[in-house]
């Protein structure tokens, strides 16, 4: 009997560990290292209607226990993702969560409508929080009403459950979470990156061509944990948590905070095997902590009994 299987809207996860969007491409590179079927799910790189080249380089800069990125949603576009990337991934027994991005409402809706039809796409992750795109983006991620409306529009066309990815760069994340829940979101994914900047000591100028970038990695974990702790108490939909996860123990901490699954981003760059390693180490850690099933951990930080309704299959 597995200690790790989790049931979420649209997702029968053999385990709650998945690579985070943008940190795993479309899986091809990591498939050199291990069988992608071991993963609970895969969150693929943001997809937009048209292909995007993204920002100029340098696109990454290292920070203390973190990194900044300003990729700018580079992706081959909806057509190629549908025609080549998703079919490639379909050889693996793993549900895909498609990260949907755009500049205008129509873009999101169009990508959602089409990509949600792909047989191996079991859920959408609505990326209203990318800090690295000049147009649109920001408003969707920071104004509750606009986020709610976008969620509703996307829900109307999507054939699979919709998870909305929240930005931490807001005064009141609970307000945002409730708004998208009202908009019909089936779940939340959080957090996206914090907006940050690094300057070159020699030139005085930003290291990133885009000037600002998204801060990820262990540095942001305390912020993510706190936000999930708050949001999970305020909404009735499940949360896929992320932000600096590197170990099985980090995963448990996210569950305690209120997450029902966890995504791993930056850590993949440090150790390509981080996801399978965590998956392998979780059962023993749960044993040690005295849990029969990982779902018991969800929300421990704020409630007596971790088990949430939507976990029971």
């Amino acid at each position, binding site marked *: 009997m597995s200690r790790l299987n989790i049931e979420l809207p649209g997702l029968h996860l053999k385990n709650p560990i998945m690579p985070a969007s943008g*940190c795993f491409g479309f899986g091809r*590179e990591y498939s050199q290292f291990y069988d992608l079927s071991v993963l609970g799910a895969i969150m693929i*790189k943001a997809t937009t209607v048209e292909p995007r080249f993204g920002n100029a380089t340098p696109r990454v800069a290292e920070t203390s226990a973190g*990194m900044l*990125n300003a990729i700018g949603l580079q992706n081959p576009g909806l057509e190629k993702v549908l025609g080549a990337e998703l079919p490639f991934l379909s050889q693996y027994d793993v549900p895909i969560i498609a990260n949907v991005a755009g500049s205008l409402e129509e873009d999101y809706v169009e990508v959602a409508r089409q990509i949600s039809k792909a047989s191996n796409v079991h859920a959408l992750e609505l990326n209203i929080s990318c800090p690295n795109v000049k147009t649109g983006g920001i408003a969707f991620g920071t104004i509750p009403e606009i986020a709610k409306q976008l969620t509703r529009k996307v829900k109307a066309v999507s054939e699979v459950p919709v998870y909305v990815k929240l930005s931490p760069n807001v005064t009141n994340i609970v307000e945002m979470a409730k708004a998208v829940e009202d908009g019909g979101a089936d779940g939340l994914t959080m957090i996206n990156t914090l907006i940050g900047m690094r300057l070159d000591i020699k030139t005085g100028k930003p290291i990133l061509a885009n000037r600002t970038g998204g801060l990820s990695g262990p540095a942001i974990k305390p912020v993510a944990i706190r936000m999930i702790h708050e949001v999970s108490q305020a909404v009735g939909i499940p949360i896929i948590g992320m932000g600096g996860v590197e170990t099985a123990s980090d995963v448990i901490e996210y569950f305690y905070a209120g997450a029902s699954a966890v995504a791993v981003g930056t850590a993949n*760059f440090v150790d390509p095997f981080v996801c399978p390693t965590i998956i392998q180490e979780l059962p023993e850690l749960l044993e040690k902590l005295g849990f029969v099933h990982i779902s018991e951990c969800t929300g421990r930080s704020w409630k007596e009994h971790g088990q949430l309704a939507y976990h029971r299959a």
Partner: protein
Amino acid sequence: MISKELCKILSQKEIASDIYELTIEGELVSQITEPGQFVHIKVTNGLDPLLRRPISISSYDKEQKMLTMIYRKEGKGTSLLAELRAGMFVDILGPLGNGFPVEEVSKGDTALLVGGGIGVPPLYELSNQLVAKGVKVIHVLGFQTASAVFYEEEFLKNGETYVATVDGSFGRKGFVTDVMKELQFDCIYTCGPTPMLRAIEQNYQDKKVFLSLEERMGCGIGACFACVCKKKDDPTGASYKKVCSDGPVFQAGEVLI
């Protein structure tokens, strides 16, 4: 095949001021296909620094399963790397990328190898392999100053070697491009600072030129889109190349630098 391996350090020494030569032993050496490939190194177990560091393979020996790197002690990562000693282990991901095509020149041809600063190391293995193949090699190596010069004797063993320093404190005063003007050759292999690569691409459009590029990296394996460059034939970037997995070596004219 790329692997992640804890490799044993066989030797580490400072061969010029702040320039270190690090030799390690590992199974992954058997996977090296060309000179000019690189490895991605995690210099500590901890989070400080967080990311791996890309360093070129300067030479390797498949029998002995040994590979050598030469790097400049710059910031946090390379400074910590420089503290490691023989007998210790270091976490290496590699071999990565595509290197210099040796098959592009034939026995009897003359190849010009042009290196600038820490762009010099990957040319050493290339030189060895070209010589083994019967190709005549000429080396032009540029450094800031005398104290930064390394490997000139090793290169000399393989063929004509010209050293230029910016301040003239060693060899010729000036840039490698000055020296190149006076030389005859069939093809160019080069690695170094971007301005140098641009100049060479500019001046030798009639020649076959192979350039090794540098870019800030995240994953090092093609997954994060950190190191992307545009293709010359398609400046919109709809089609593009990744320095880490398509490069670091490209033929002049292939990508925008």
